[in-house]
C-alpha cells in the first residue's frame, strides 16, 4: 500500500482547500491536496456572480466599509451567525481580493464616466469617478446595502479558481486528482490523515499528516433536485461525522433557489424575474400574485421557492418524466432583451433544453442550492472533537452564514476563510510534532477493505445502491425541503430510519473493480442517509422559522428559545443523531433585530441575555441609522 506524508493534508481542492494549502506552503510546510476531479473542475468554478468585499471603489459602492458588510452579513444570517466570525470575514475580504489581483485574477476594473444599469426593468444612470479608474469594481447582488460584488465578467469562480490553482503549481503543492477520501485515520483524540481510494485504479492509499483540513464543499447531492455538481455529495462531512466525535453545525440550514431548470437543475439567474419574467402553472396561468399580491415574482428566494412548492402541492404542477415542475416565461421580454441582457439564460436553454425562450416556456422548479450546514469549527477553523482536524469553505460551519447566506458571500468565504484558517494551521504546525500510530492506521485501512469486500460480494445484502439513494433523496424532497412542518418531518425521519437500515444492506450489481462508480456511491450511502437524518431531525426539533429554515407550523423567529446553533453528533452504533445546542454567538456587535425583509414575527430574546453580550462597536451606530 502506498503511504504519503505531508505536514498538511487538504481534502478538497476547491477554492477553500487550495487557499489553505497555499498559506501552509508559503510558510514552508509541505501541503498535499486531494480532489475527486482535477482541481479546476471543483464546484467553485461554477460560481458566476462574484464575491463580496467592501472595497467601495465603484460609484454605487461609495461609502461602503467593512462595518456595513458586517451588518449585511449578520442580517442576512437572520442573526444565526457567529458575529466574531462575520467580523473576521468582513475585515479581511478587501485584502484578500487585492491579494488575488496580485496573484493574477483579472478582476473587472472601474471605467470612468457615464454608464447605465437596470433595476426592476428600469434604466438608471451612474457616473464613475476619474480618480478611481483601474481599481477593482463591483456589481450589485441581492440583499446588500452597497454594490460590493467583485467579479470577472460572467466567470468569477472559474477565473479565481484558475489563479489559485496556478498559485499552487507555483508553490509546488502536490494536487492529486481522482483521489477520494473515504475515511479519516484517528485515535479518538488526534486526526492523523485519511484512507483514500484512487479513482484511477480503485486501490486504497494512505495519506498521513500532522494536520488535516476538510474542504470538500457542499452536499447538495443528497437532495434529488440541486444546482450542485455531482461530486458535491457530502464525502468530507461523512468521514468526519462518522468518527462519532465531530458534530454537524445547523444541519437544518439548507438554502433553496426558485429556478433550477428541469431535468438537470442547472441554475437560471434571478435576473429573469427581476427583468419581468413570470412563473406559470400547468394551466399556463400566473400564480405568484395570488400568494404575494405586492411583490409577486419579485419576492425573495425563500419566499418564491415556498410559494412554488405550495402551488405544486395544490396540484398545479406540470407533470414530467422527471417529476413535477412549473414554467418560467420570458417570451414577452423579446428577442433583443433576451439575446443581450439574458444571454446566459438563452445559452442554457439552448444547450441543455433545446428550448428557445423567445417562443417557448422554460421548465423550472425550486432546487437545493447551498449548505450553510457543515462541520462545526471554532473561529480558527478547528473542527470540534478532533485535534489536528480543520475545515473551511462550504464544507464547514465556521458560521458566518447562520441560517441564510447572502449571494456573493460564499465564494468570498472560501478564500477569506482559507487565508485565516490556513494561518491558524500554520500556527498549529509550528513546533508541533506527532507520532503516527501504525495500529490505528492498519485498523482504519482494514475496516475500509472489509467494507469494500462486503459490498462487492453482497455480504450484508443485495439491495440496489441507486434505489436506496433515490429513496433518501425523495424523502428529503418531500418532508425536508422549502417548507417544513411537524407531520412532514416526522414522516421524513421515519422513512429515513427505514432507509438507513436498507443502506446497511446494499450490495453491488457490478464487480466493483477499478474506478467503479457504483462502489463509490455505495461507500458513502450510509453516511449520506445519516446526514439526511440529521437535517430532518434537527428541522423537526427547531420549532421556529429562521432564514431558510421554514416551519409552516411555527412561522415566527423565536429568539427567546432558538437563538442557538444545533450540533448533531452521530455516536458509534446509534440509530439516531444526538442533538445539542450552543449559543449562536459569544457576543453581539449587532443585537438581534429585524432582517428588513421576509416579514414574519419575532419573539424577542431575553433582554438581559442580549445586553450582557452586546459589545461597543461602530456598527451599533450605523445599525441604528438604517
Amino acid at each position, binding site marked *: 500500500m502506498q503511504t504519503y506524508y505531508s505536514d498538511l493534508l487538504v481534502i478538497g481542492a476547491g477554492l477553500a482547500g487550495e487557499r489553505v494549502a497555499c498559506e501552509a506552503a508559503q510558510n514552508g510546510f509541505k501541503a498535499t491536496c486531494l480532489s475527486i476531479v482535477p482541481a479546476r473542475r471543483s464546484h467553485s*468554478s461554477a460560481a458566476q456572480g462574484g464575491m463580496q468585499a467592501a472595497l467601495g471603489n465603484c460609484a454605487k459602492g461609495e461609502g461602503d466599509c467593512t462595518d456595513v458588510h458586517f451588518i449585511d452579513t449578520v442580517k442576512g444570517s437572520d442573526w444565526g451567525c457567529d458575529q466574531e466570525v462575520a467580523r473576521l470575514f468582513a475585515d479581511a475580504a478587501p485584502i484578500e481580493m487585492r491579494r488575488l489581483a*496580485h*496573484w*493574477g485574477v483579472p478582476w473587472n476594473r472601474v471605467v470612468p464616466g457615464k454608464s447605465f444599469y437596470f433595476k426592476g426593468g428600469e434604466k438608471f444612470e451612474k457616473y464613475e469617478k476619474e480618480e478611481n*479608474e*483601474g481599481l477593482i469594481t463591483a456589481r450589485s447582488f441581492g440583499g446588500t446595502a452597497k454594490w460590493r460584488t467583485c467579479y470577472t465578467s460572467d466567470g468569477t469562480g472559474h477565473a479565481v479558481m484558475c489563479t489559485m490553482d496556478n498559485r499552487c503549481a507555483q508553490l509546488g503543492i502536490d494536487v492529486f486528482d481522482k483521489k477520494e477520501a473515504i475515511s479519516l485515520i484517528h485515535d479518538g483524540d488526534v486526526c492523523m490523515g485519511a484512507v483514500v481510494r484512487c479513482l484511477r485504479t480503485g486501490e486504497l492509499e494512505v495519506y498521513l499528516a500532522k494536520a488535516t483540513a476538510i474542504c470538500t464543499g457542499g452536499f447538495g447531492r443528497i437532495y434529488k433536485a440541486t444546482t450542485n455538481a455531482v461530486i458535491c455529495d457530502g464525502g468530507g462531512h461523512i468521514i468526519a461525522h462518522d468518527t462519532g466525535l465531530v458534530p454537524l453545525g445547523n444541519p437544518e440550514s439548507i438554502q433553496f433557489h426558485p429556478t433550477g431548470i428541469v431535468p438537470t437543475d442547472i441554475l437560471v439567474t434571478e435576473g429573469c424575474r427581476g427583468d419581468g419574467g413570470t412563473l406559470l402553472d400547468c394551466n399556463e396561468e400566473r400564480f405568484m400574485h395570488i400568494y404575494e399580491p405586492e411583490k409577486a415574482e419579485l419576492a425573495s428566494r425563500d419566499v418564491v421557492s415556498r410559494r412554488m412548492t405550495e402551488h405544486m402541492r395544490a396540484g398545479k404542477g406540470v407533470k414530467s418524466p422527471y417529476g413535477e415542475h412549473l414554467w418560467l416565461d420570458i417570451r414577452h421580454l423579446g428577442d433583443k432583451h433576451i439575446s443581450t441582457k439574458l444571454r446566459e439564460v438563452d445559452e442554457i436553454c439552448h444547450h441543455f433544453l433545446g428550448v428557445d425562450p423567445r417562443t417557448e416556456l422554460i421548465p423550472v422548479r425550486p432546487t437545493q442550492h447551498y449548505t450553510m450546514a457543515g462541520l462545526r469549527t471554532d473561529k480558527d477553523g478547528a473542527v470540534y472533537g478532533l485535534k489536528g482536524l480543520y475545515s473551511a469553505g462550504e464544507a464547514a460551519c465556521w458560521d458566518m452564514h447562520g441560517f441564510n447566506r447572502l449571494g456573493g458571500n460564499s465564494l468570498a468565504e472560501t478564500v477569506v476563510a482559507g487565508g485565516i484558517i490556513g494561518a491558524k494551521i500554520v500556527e498549529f504546525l509550528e513546533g508541533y510534532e506527532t507520532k503516527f500510530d501504525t495500529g490505528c492506521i492498519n485498523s482504519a485501512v482494514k475496516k475500509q477493505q472489509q467494507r469494500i469486500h462486503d459490498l462487492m460480494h453482497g455480504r450484508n445484502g443485495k439491495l440496489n*445502491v441507486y434505489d436506496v439513494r433515490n429513496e433518501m433523496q425523495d424523502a428529503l424532497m418531500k418532508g425536508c425541503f422549502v417548507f417544513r412542518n411537524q407531520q412532514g418531518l416526522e414522516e421524513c425521519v421515519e422513512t429515513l430510519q427505514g432507509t438507513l437500515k436498507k443502506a446497511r444492506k446494499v450490495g*453491488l450489481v457490478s464487480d466493483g473493480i477499478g474506478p467503479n462508480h457504483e462502489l463509490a456511491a455505495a461507500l458513502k450511502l450510509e453516511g449520506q442517509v445519516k446526514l439526511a437524518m440529521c437535517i430532518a431531525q434537527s428541522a423537526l426539533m427547531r420549532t421556529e422559522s429562521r432564514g431558510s429554515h421554514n416551519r409552516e407550523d411555527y412561522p415566527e423567529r423565536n429568539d427567546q428559545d432558538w437563538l442557538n446553533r444545533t450540533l448533531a453528533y452521530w455516536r458509534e452504533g446509534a440509530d439516531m443523531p444526538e442533538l445539542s445546542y450552543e449559543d449562536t454567538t459569544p457576543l453581539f456587535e449587532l443585537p438581534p433585530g429585524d432582517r428588513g425583509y421576509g416579514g414574519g414575527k419575532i419573539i424577542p430574546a431575553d433582554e438581559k441575555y442580549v445586553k450582557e453580550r452586546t459589545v461597543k462597536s461602530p456598527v451599533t451606530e450605523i445599525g441604528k441609522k438604517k
Partner: protein
Amino acid sequence: MGRQIKFEIFRYNPQRKGDVPHMQTFTLEETQNMTLFIALNRLREEQDPSLIFDFCCRAGICGACAMVINGRPGLACQTKIKDQPSKITLLPLPVYKLVGDLAVDTGVWFREMYAKTESWVHTSKVFDPTKEEERMDNSIAEEIYELERCIECGCCVSACGTARLRDDFLGAAGLNRVARFVVDPRDERTDKDYYEVIGNDQGIFGCMGLLACEDVCPKGLPLQNQLGFLRRKMGITALKDIFKKK
C-alpha cells in the same frame, strides 16, 4: 413514446484482468429534454453499473465530460439526444491516458502543461496588504479573462493532428495558456523567455495550422487568433535571435 436510441459505447477497464477493448450496445427510450448526461447516468443506474464515465458540473462549465460523440470531440452534458441520430457512438478522447470506458486522465496532462509553461504570473513585486491594489485597464482585464475561459476539457488537443503524433506537443490549450500570460501586464517575462518555452516543435512550430482545435472548442475560444499571434511574436523573436548571434 420517444425514440429508441441505440448507444454504441467503447468498453475497456484496464484494471480488470483479461478485459479487452470492445464496443457494447445499449438501448434507451428517449425522454423529453434528454441529454447525454441523463442518458449515461440512466444506463449506469438501470442497466450496467460498471460503466465508467466522468461528469461533474453537468452544466458545461467544468470540462469533465468531454468524449468523442459520433466522431466528434464534445461535451456530453451539453449534447441533447434530440439533436442526434437514433444511433449514438461514444468513444473516449484520444491522446489522454484511458482511465476506463469513456473516462480519460486529463488531470495529469494539464498539470504537466502548467509546469512546462510555468502557468503563473511571474513578478518580482511583493504583495503589500496595507496598500491599494495596483490599477489595471478594464479592457486588458477583459482580454485576459477571454483567454482564461478555457475549461481544460481537452477537446482541442484530441482533435489535433500534431498532438496525436507527438505526445510532448503543448496543444492549442497549452499555447492559449501562454498567450494569457503574454497579454498580462503583471507578468514580467519577456518574449525571449516565452520563446524558450514555446519556440520549438513541442510548441508553436509544431502546429500545422489546420484549426481542428478551434472547430471543436465548446467554449468558442479564438484559438486561431492566438496561434497566429504567438507564431508572429515567436517568429520575430527567432529572427532577432539569429541576427544577434551573427
